[in-house]
């Protein structure tokens, strides 16, 4: 098994009195798809936002390439090569596809924006991903369908030399064909050596593309297991009860008092 590219150790996160993440350990390996599963409100999106530098963590360690790092802002995360596709899509409706893909990291020529260069690069990325549903890269994002917006968000993440890509429910709003495209894309990213984290509620998707499954239960990491060593029933149990057989969080009666 390859060395982890991203590792969380004992991460805690509270929003005021609400303790959302409890001592969470989480490992992402290059070349692998890690599925992050858990019920609604388990803390998956929060975990992603902590990695992305949007929420500061209360305690715990983040290691990148085995080195402890601090990610205090989205810029820090981007500098490490961590890209995120957010569940609540973080695109600017009034801007077009190119502008959105380069937002915050525009190419400059002297003082001014290199619009032609950015358009060229955006087109190339979309063509490389064989994105065929988008008519013009100068369409404003507001006029795109949910699936097209998702595609843009993913293309934005691959545009940069990213090493870890976190996708928060990228297929939730998609039709059959577009889900297929996104899953293929997810697999391709991992095959290119990136560490990919896929959040999904869909067990078919998880078992199709993921190498490892990490299950969050009420803000605790119940288990991180290779997909090959587990079954759907087991994962569903981990999601709903936090444990399954000898996997997961110990049952209350056997826990140390």
């Amino acid at each position: 098994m390859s060395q982890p590219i991203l590792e969380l150790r004992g991460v805690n996160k509270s929003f005021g009195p609400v303790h959302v993440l409890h001592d969470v350990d989480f490992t992402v390996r290059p070349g692998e798809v890690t599925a992050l599963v858990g019920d609604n409100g388990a803390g998956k999106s929060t975990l992603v936002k902590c990695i992305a530098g949007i929420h500061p963590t209360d305690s715990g360690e983040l290691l990148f390439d085995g080195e402890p790092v601090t990610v205090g802002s989205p810029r820090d995360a981007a500098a490490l090569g961590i890209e995120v596709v957010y569940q609540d899509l973080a695109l600017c409706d009034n801007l077009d596809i190119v502008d959105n893909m380069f937002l915050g990291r525009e190419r400059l020529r002297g003082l001014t924006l290199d619009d032609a260069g950015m358009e060229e690069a955006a087109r190339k990325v979309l063509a490389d991903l064989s994105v065929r549903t988008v008519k013009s890269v100068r369409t404003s994002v507001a006029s795109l369908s949910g699936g097209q917006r998702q595609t843009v968000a993913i293309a934005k993440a691959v545009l940069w030399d990213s090493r870890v890509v976190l996708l928060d429910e990228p297929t939730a709003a998609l039709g059959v064909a577009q889900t297929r495209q996104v899953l293929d894309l997810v697999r391709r990213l991992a095959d290119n050596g990136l560490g990919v984290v896929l959040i999904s509620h869909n067990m078919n998707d998880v078992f199709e593309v993921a190498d490892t499954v990490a299950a969050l239960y009420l803000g605790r990491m119940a288990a991180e297991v290779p997909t090959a060593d587990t079954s759907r029933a087991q994962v569903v149990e981990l999601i709903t009860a936090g444990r399954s057989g000898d996997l997961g969080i110990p049952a209350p009666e056997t826990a140390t008092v």
Partner: protein
Amino acid sequence: MSQSTLDYESTVNTEQQSLGKRLFSANTLWTGLVLLVLYAVFSIMRPDAFLTLFTFQTLLIEAAVLLVLTVGMTFVIITSGIDLSVGSVLVFAGVVGAQVMEGMSPGGDATGAGAGVIAVGLLATVAAGAAWGLLNGLLIAKAKIPPLIVTLGSFGAALGAAQLLTGGSDVRTVPAQLRDWLGFGQTAGVPHMVILAAVVALHGAWLLRTTRFGRNNYAIGSNAEAARRVGINVTGHLVATYAYVGALAGLAGFMSLAYFGTTTISGHSTDNLNAIAAVVIGGTSLFGGVGTVLGSVIGVFIPAVLTKGFVVIGVQPYWQPIAVSIVLVAAVWLDQVRRRARNSR
């Protein structure tokens, strides 16, 4: 992957189409046409009085101060903010600048002051405006108080502060050289006031259209959370934007000093609304994320042409605010229709 190559090429074609479509559907084009039609109508009705160099020059000069305010207002409204304080900040900055120039002159009479004093006066005026803008920006972006409330407060406070500084009366000694050079000066028939306003507008358009600052301005107005997530310093940007508006209000105050030769304390209570109207008529959305400086420039001249035209054709001037209001409401209505059409797609 021949399929994708094929589609990729058709993408290139749609690009050109959409550019033309974008230009055509751009409301700037329509408001520009409205302005031209208005101008043509008044010119045909009274070619002798309306179609003169003098009328054209005064039209431009009288719009110059408002234009400078409007450039800043465009930036603020695109961030989905608002600045009600521009007119009061203009007055406050003008008072500070005028008093600095008086203070540097023998006997407190700045009429005979030279270039050095005028230069210091300019700096003081712009700095005073920028300081109010900075205060607005900090309260809005850092203390998270809604811009409407913050700038409503500044609207009253800046005027009050100006009156406190002068004891309520206008400062009346303004360097004659400043009035000659900026207030009434011309180069090749183009008034210097107009040149200055044009430079500000061109710079504003450049800043908004082609720089990262401008792009961030659109992004923040469109989706501030998304901007934050890509690492844009939203707070810093908003502070800078309000400071920019304040600095431009200061510059407008200096131009007003040069033109009127006094601080015109009571003459700017509706500048804020005029500037907002111009920006909105020019196609900038009050919901943020959309707008151009060129549109705002056109938006300044539609009311200005109406005013001049009504005077020239002998319509009672009281009709002007009514006409402008109709244009304003129509512009906002059009924006709503566009947004609805877009959202239901």
